[in-house]
């Protein structure tokens, strides 16, 4: 009975008693969720356009952040020029991946392409460590004019502290998502991307170049990775430990659906908030550290009832 009380009643009593703590936890969850959502967004972009489940998205985040920091610190390039150069590097990377990996593997089963992105992941880990070294690095937030410090609100019978950096991240991420939405629906290339997503053959037959589209979409995913990398790196250090967050994006995709941009964002926020709340209020019952698996178990339960995700296209096949 006591155990049931601890599970079903006590956490809610705690929430009601200290609403400021609840608000703080919610905010932390939203911030973490936003970063998951950004990684998931990179996955969705590539999956929609090329049907490739890009496992390398996580390492692309690390690689982009490392390139930026490495150029700034080791070669003393001014921050904004380093940013521009990193964007260039991401374009070269997209081009190289299309040339060396995707083009020779056209028409192979999905699973083979999935495995190929494992190869890309390993290559980038080795390459990144070879060039930039494995030590954690500090993101030059000041040079990129990202705000520091925190805003404190005295509400709800206590105080809620919001990091300015997180607020900036939320604003920039929203702008980027809005920009991507406009790009997808209004521009010529965006329409071509959606055509490719619907059917490769039909897109080819109306004169859309698949190669070009793939470079663009991997480049877009690279840009998303760069933004993710900057904000994640600013919150902690830039290191290969960031790679683990890519695996966190997988349950987000399950929740939101593999092909849906709004799904990735909503899924990311749900996972982020759910994980933080569960760890804060229920975690101690399980001995702590529950955020290592909570997202996956949620995704697993979700898969049982709605395999296509919240916003995904319905999968007709039922076996």
């Amino acid at each position: 009975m006591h155990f049931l009380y601890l599970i079903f009643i006590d956490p809610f009593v705690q929430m009601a008693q200290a609403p400021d703590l609840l608000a703080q936890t919610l905010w932390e969850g939203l911030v973490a969720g936003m970063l998951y959502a950004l990684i998931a967004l990179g996955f969705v972009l590539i999956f929609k356009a090329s049907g490739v489940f890009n496992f390398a998205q996580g390492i692309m985040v690390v690689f982009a952040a490392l390139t930026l920091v490495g150029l700034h610190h080791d070669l003393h390039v001014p921050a904004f020029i380093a940013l521009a150069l990193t964007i260039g590097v991401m374009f070269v990377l997209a081009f190289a991946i299309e040339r060396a990996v995707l083009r020779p593997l056209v028409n192979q089963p999905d699973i083979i392409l999935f495995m190929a992105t494992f190869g890309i992941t390993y290559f980038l880990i080795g390459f990144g460590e070879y060039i930039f070294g494995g030590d954690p690095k500090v993101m030059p937030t000041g040079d990129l004019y990202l705000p520091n410090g925190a805003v404190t609100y005295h509400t709800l019978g206590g105080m809620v502290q919001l990091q300015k950096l997180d607020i900036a991240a939320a604003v920039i991420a929203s702008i980027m998502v809005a920009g991507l939405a406009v790009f997808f629906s209004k521009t010529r290339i965006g329409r071509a991307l959606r055509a490719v997503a619907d059917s490769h053959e039909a897109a080819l037959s109306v004169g859309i170049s698949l190669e070009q589209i793939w470079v663009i979409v991997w480049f877009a995913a690279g840009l998303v990775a760069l933004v993710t990398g900057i904000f994640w790196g600013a919150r902690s250090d830039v290191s290969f430990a960031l790679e683990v967050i890519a695996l966190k994006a997988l349950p987000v995709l399950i929740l939101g659906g593999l092909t849906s941009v709004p799904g990735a964002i909503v899924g990311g926020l749900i996972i982020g908030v759910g994980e933080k709340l569960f760890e804060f209020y229920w975690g101690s019952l399980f001995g702590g550290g529950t955020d290592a698996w909570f997202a996956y178990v949620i995704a697993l339960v979700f898969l049982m009832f709605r395999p296509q995700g919240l916003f995904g296209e319905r999968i007709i096949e039922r076996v």
Partner: protein
Amino acid sequence: MLYREAGQFKTDYASDQAIFPILQDRIGLAVILVVAFAIPLANNDFLTNAMMIPFMIFVLAAIGLNLLTGYTGLLSLGTGAFMGVGAYACYKLTSIFPNVNILIWVVVSGFFSAAVGAVFGLPSLRIKGFYLAIATLAAQFFLEWCFIRVSWLYNYNISGAIEVPQRTLFGIIVTGPRATAETRYYIVLIFLVAMTWIASNLVHGRIGRSWMAVRDMDIAAELMGIRLLPTKLLAFAVSSFYCGVAGALMVFLWYGGAEPAVFNINQSFTILFMIIIGGLGSLLGAYLGAALIYILPIVLRFAPEAVGLHVHAATAEHVTFMTVGALIIFFLIAEPAGLARLWQVGKQKLRVWPFPY
């Protein structure tokens, strides 16, 4: 020239259905077995302890994953965790019942792993492909968390790691720090040979055929009367059994102790790479893949020194990562069916040599 089956007639059904129908293959297998049993005689500790024992354990795990991913077509990223279940089960069993023969517990721990695998395989009825891979990731992270947090599993050790106690078999020390490399080598070898033989019989028989039918087209398999849930669950159970035994052997006969980090997600990926490069749906592929993925980094570490180049250890590790990544991509492009397929092609070429057809 040597490899030609002219004159070898099949006079009964048994010889027609033999797994190695060609005499030269049987001779080759016998030679390999003899060499395998003779390796400890070379008295080279590095060869037995650092190369052959890990290699054979990885082969066992790779066979397990191959039964699931290669033969049944169910992608799993939880191999490391299933190996961990075997290791921890064996550790608990031998601490509770120290007088029972350790090898019995190695086998029994496989059954524990099989049960856990079957539970986490339950979603496979409704989902497949990437979705299933993510479901097995849940197994990986949840079990890994259990290995860290459930202190009962490691007997409340302060270090959080398990240490292998000394156990004997017919008076010979087989586990613990005082066991000799030869003893451990022979035990692992016997496990490997026996379990490869069982796996070979499984995949050539009714069960293996139903697995392959499910892999090739599950709807058609169901129409033919194969019940999907039992078949898939059996694949999960057998695969986890192999991984569990491999995990138990890994801790008891190779490492001599383990932390939860041994069974992390990277271990799962390593085994997955072995079967991709070796060949999905091939037992030989498990051997070739394990050889390449495990032995290649060792070679890369020592090769520069052998030719007089001094490379920093960290650099060598990075180069290894890059090489493995590049190799995966290269093999997927050149031969998606893996090294086993290359071997097949080579054999076919030899059979008709010097003629191209």
